[in-house]
């Protein structure tokens, strides 16, 4: 689904604060794979995710999604395949817009935003049903501005928004880092269910080793812009939580 070939990315090249964020990574992410990326701060995880999303373009190397070379494609065009959940709950939703309007935009992610009114009663009902599925009691509040909700509620809604339109790849950048343990749990379980139900290819960055242990079908550890551990399938399943702690020892 996602093929990354010998990708390099350096920030502030030639300056005193030069950072070699990604140092020649080659990675093949299979369709339907739920990839967890762990690594210490500055190991290049977020740069990797931004390279896949297109917010950052590589210095060299190629990236392809679903057989299409997207190396020089800007992020807003890659949204044909990719939905994102950001670390900051504020980044994934528009706070001043109503929940309904946020969902409307998400439901036409891969389509043209035209000059017709798309928010009608049928759409409203559809959103209410989906939101009710979260069990947060938000279905009666969909006319409220998104900004009136808590971070956990917003992250859960962002996840739901990502599958409002056809979606192949879901990028999760520490989606629970800003949340309390209970909200974090709800968000992670929602993500896991959606990834299974919609057979999504997912890339999940986390510092929470418990989540890294509980979720995903493959785990890689990054360090200094390289992949230093890569376990999938049964190897990931037989991994113990303590082994993960040892990776960071």
């Amino acid at each position: 689904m996602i093929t990354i070939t010998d990708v390099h990315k350096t920030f502030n090249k030639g300056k005193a604060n030069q950072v070699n964020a990604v140092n020649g990574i080659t990675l093949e992410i299979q369709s339907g794979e739920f990839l967890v990326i762990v690594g210490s701060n500055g190991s290049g995880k977020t740069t990797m995710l931004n390279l896949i999303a297109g917010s950052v373009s590589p210095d060299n190397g190629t990236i392809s999604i679903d057989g299409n070379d997207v190396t020089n494609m800007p992020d807003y065009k890659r949204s044909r395949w990719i939905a994102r959940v950001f670390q900051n709950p504020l980044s994934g939703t528009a706070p001043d817009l109503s929940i309904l309007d946020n969902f409307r935009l998400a439901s036409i992610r891969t389509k043209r935003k035209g000059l017709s009114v798309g928010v009608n009663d049928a759409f409203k009902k559809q959103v209410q049903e989906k939101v009710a599925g979260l069990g947060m009691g938000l279905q009666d509040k969909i006319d409220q501005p998104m900004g009136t909700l808590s971070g956990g509620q917003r992250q859960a809604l962002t996840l739901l928004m990502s599958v409002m339109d056809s979606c192949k790849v879901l990028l999760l950048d520490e989606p629970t880092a800003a949340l309390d343990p209970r909200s974090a749990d709800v968000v992670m379980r929602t993500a896991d269910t959606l990834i299974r139900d919609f057979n999504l290819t997912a890339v999940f960055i986390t510092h929470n080793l418990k989540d890294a242990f509980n979720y995903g079908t493959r785990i890689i550890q990054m360090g200094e812009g390289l992949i230093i551990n890569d376990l999938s399938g049964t190897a990931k399943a037989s991994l113990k939580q303590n082994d993960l702690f040892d990776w960071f020892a």
Partner: protein
Amino acid sequence: MDFYLTALLQGLCFSAIALGIYISMKIFNIPDITTDGSYTLGGVVTAVLLTNHQPAYVILPAVILAGAAAGALTGIIHTKLKINALLAGILVMTALYSVNLTILGRSNLPLINLPSLFTIVSVVNDPNQNTFWILAIFVIVITFLIGYLLKTDFGIAMRATGNSESMIRSLGVNTDRMKITGLALANALTALSGYLVAQFQGFADISMGIGIVIVGLGSVIIAETLINWFKLTSVWLSLVLVLAGAVIFQLVLAFTLSVGVDPKLLKIVTAGFVLVIVSLPRLSLLRSS
């Protein structure tokens, strides 16, 4: 009383500029100073085309296009050259002064005895009332169009662009193009105010736009204060309050003049008035917290 009627009519003329500033400042979160130039541009294009006896159906689209081009230029400088929006606006506004002077050919062009929007259409006999009705219809049509636009999928994407850029990019919107379009729209509206005012006052002047941005800004800030006051989220009500803001602003200025304030001090009164409305909500917040 006529004094206040004139103020009301002027307020209606300025409602297009208020809607323009509302779009650039509140929806896109971009402080756009192109306004001073694009307002004059609207007036200048109107005056020159009127003196060349062009029909109304040529003048109106020409004014809209001229304003949109000015706004798009600011947008392109801001997004493609990555220049601060404020500076981009100032650059275009400065350049527009020469453009306007070239189009006008001199510093002032009177439009006396030429047919204007307010004389070719006759709703009622009294000229002042006739002007009022024409302006009212004009403003209602513009407001309806903008309100509808903001309700469409494109409009929601516009509103999201100024609100959460990372989100709207990840939802497949080219934010650069959206901002350029938005600034074009805002300045097309601003030029429309120039179009109305030039015909209303009967002349176009190269300096008619000096400090005009504060009129739009003041109107939007009055509206914003009311919106926050009543905790409104409706797009339609917000637009209506922006129009109300434009009218209130002119009425306050008319009141200041009528109580005998020296017209020389009008700009300082304007600035002071805007300062008061901006700071009032903050002052009351300080007290309650």
